[in-house]
């Protein structure tokens, strides 16, 4: 076999693999979308219709119209989710950036140990902490508030954020900051005007990561929030559709709507994510 045809074979295998993988990745989403256009009855036909014979937007109208109770609730849950995720993201960045910077730049005693302890957060399964955390939130009077969720969510994103950003700051020469300080910046200005913009891909990446984690979180939201008006989408999603009747098209439509913001955000910003990982995390 000549090298040329060997390479061609290699390349062909790659394409076939890619197409199969693409089907694997996208087909479930497609089926979600197709189901969401069916009526509850049509969804239960077996074998199923691969293309809905009578497609309709009934589920979407119900979910997104503020005119009916379901729509009002769903939109409220969405607003709640947006608020919780945004707050988590902003606070997450505000907390992670200085910490990562300090871990990268300063040589204070206990630095390594503290850095490890931050990374260690991921070792602990969320479920295990539900009860003690609830009791603690209760002490602090935070039950049924978004603060309880935001505080908890913060810690999900922090380890990866700090690790990723530290990688960035490690790679930014300290002379840039020194130059800036000599050029008339305070320490903070040097950081804010010179270092921050250079770590922007990392900040964007960690922001997306925090947002998505918060947006999708389910178990804590279920436990910490009681008020019907305060629920976030994943909990609301479950509440709506699985209690007394499993409305598959409705569930699929709601899942779709819930996925749109994060998917769109991720698609637009994914290049930063790759860049951040390349520059911040895996550079060897």
């Amino acid at each position: 076999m000549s090298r040329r045809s060997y390479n061609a074979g290699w390349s062909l295998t790659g394409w076939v693999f890619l197409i199969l993988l693409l089907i694997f990745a996208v087909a479930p989403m497609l089926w979600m979308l197709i189901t969401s256009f069916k009526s509850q009855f049509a969804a239960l036909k077996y074998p199923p219709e691969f293309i809905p014979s009578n497609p309709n937007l009934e589920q979407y109208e119900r979910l997104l119209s503020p005119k009916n109770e379901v729509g009002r609730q769903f939109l409220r849950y969405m607003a709640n989710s947006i608020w919780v995720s945004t707050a988590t993201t902003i606070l997450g960045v505000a907390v992670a950036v200085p910490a990562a910077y300090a871990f990268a730049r300063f040589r204070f005693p206990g630095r390594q140990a503290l850095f490890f302890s931050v990374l260690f957060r991921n070792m602990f399964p969320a479920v295990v902490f539900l009860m003690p955390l609830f009791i603690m939130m209760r002490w602090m009077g935070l039950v049924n508030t978004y603060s309880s969720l935001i505080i908890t969510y913060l810690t999900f994103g922090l380890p990866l954020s700090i690790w990723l950003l530290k990688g960035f700051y490690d790679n930014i020469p300290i002379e840039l900051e020194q130059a800036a300080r000599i050029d008339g910046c305070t320490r903070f200005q040097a950081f804010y005007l010179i270092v921050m913009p250079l770590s922007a891909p990392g900040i964007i990446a960690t922001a997306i990561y925090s947002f998505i984690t918060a947006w999708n979180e389910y178990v804590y939201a279920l436990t910490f929030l009681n008020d019907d008006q305060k629920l976030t989408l994943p909990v609301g999603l479950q509440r709506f559709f699985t209690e007394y009747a499993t409305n598959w098209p409705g569930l699929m439509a709601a899942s779709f709507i819930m996925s749109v913001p994060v998917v769109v955000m991720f698609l637009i910003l994914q290049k930063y994510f790759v860049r951040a990982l390349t520059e911040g995390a895996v550079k060897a």
Partner: protein
Amino acid sequence: MAQVEFQNVVKSYGAFEAVKSVSFTVEDGEFVALVGPSGCGKTTTLNLVAGLLDLTSGDIKVSGKTISDLDPKDRDIAMVFQNYALYPNKTVQQNLAFPLKMRKVPKRDIGAKVAEAARLLEITHLLDRYPRELSGGQQQRVALGRALVRDPQVFLMDEPLSNLDAKLRVQMRSELKRFHQDLSATIIYVTHDQLEAMTMADKMAVMSGGVLQQYDAPERIFEEPANTFVAGFVGSPSMNLLPATAVERDGAVYATGDGWELVLAPRNAASARASSGPGIILGARHSSLGLHDTETPGCIQARVFTVEPTGDITFVHVDVGDSTFVISVDPERRIAADQTVWIEFDQNKLHVFDAQTEKRIAPG
């Protein structure tokens, strides 16, 4: 411009003292080179001036006023870094304007000053580019421009030429020197390259192990090195150093070593007598030594190790006991390795060091 005064400057990290009680004064308009091998504390000293590091003790004064407690931005100094430290996300124009912007210079003035600096450094055509689009030499000029544009009291330069290739380095060296002369700026310049220091500086501060070894004009340092370290560090090839024992016999002083003996001329004999003990070190530059093919009185026998012709001059490495000497000879001379030769010392240019203190003993 300004005078910079170092008073017992100490910088320590825990138990380690990077800079040990350094005192010297850079006069207004002087170009001072801080030289020494890496780790000698020269960059630390520079950063202390810049305010990037805090003094452990001592004081630094600029124009008589202490700056030790000031923030870098308030010290009115400029600094050029080894890796240039250009802001990668700003254009050349923005890089140059940045220090002015931070000092709230009016916008109109910023434009004028940047244009002036760019003209001076011939980088006007590069103003819209980003640093990554520039060659090393161009980046160097921009870094210089960024320091220049502010018209600071003191310029600090941390090995600014070491990232350039040899040819460019020579060119930039002369430009920097010219730049200093034109602006009569006070410059503190850190380099590990003694040649760079020699050629450019008004004064050199030679450092080693955190200690200031000698602070003087380059030619004085070359001619009267304070100790064996300075003698070995300054000059290329460096000074030949030959440990010996001084023996007084028949009113004359002999320097003796492993299988050789040299009678010292009176000026050197006096120095040897002033030594704290019998141990001395003889120092001789390659140019002050002669080579004979045949046995000559007053000379030391030695064996040729290698011969290095460089074109207009040939360096001969010879073994004397445990030491190796480098001697320059006329390129016409035919000398082969392993040949036995006799070394003649020009006693007027011979240095005598106290083996114990390693300090030079001035001729009596």
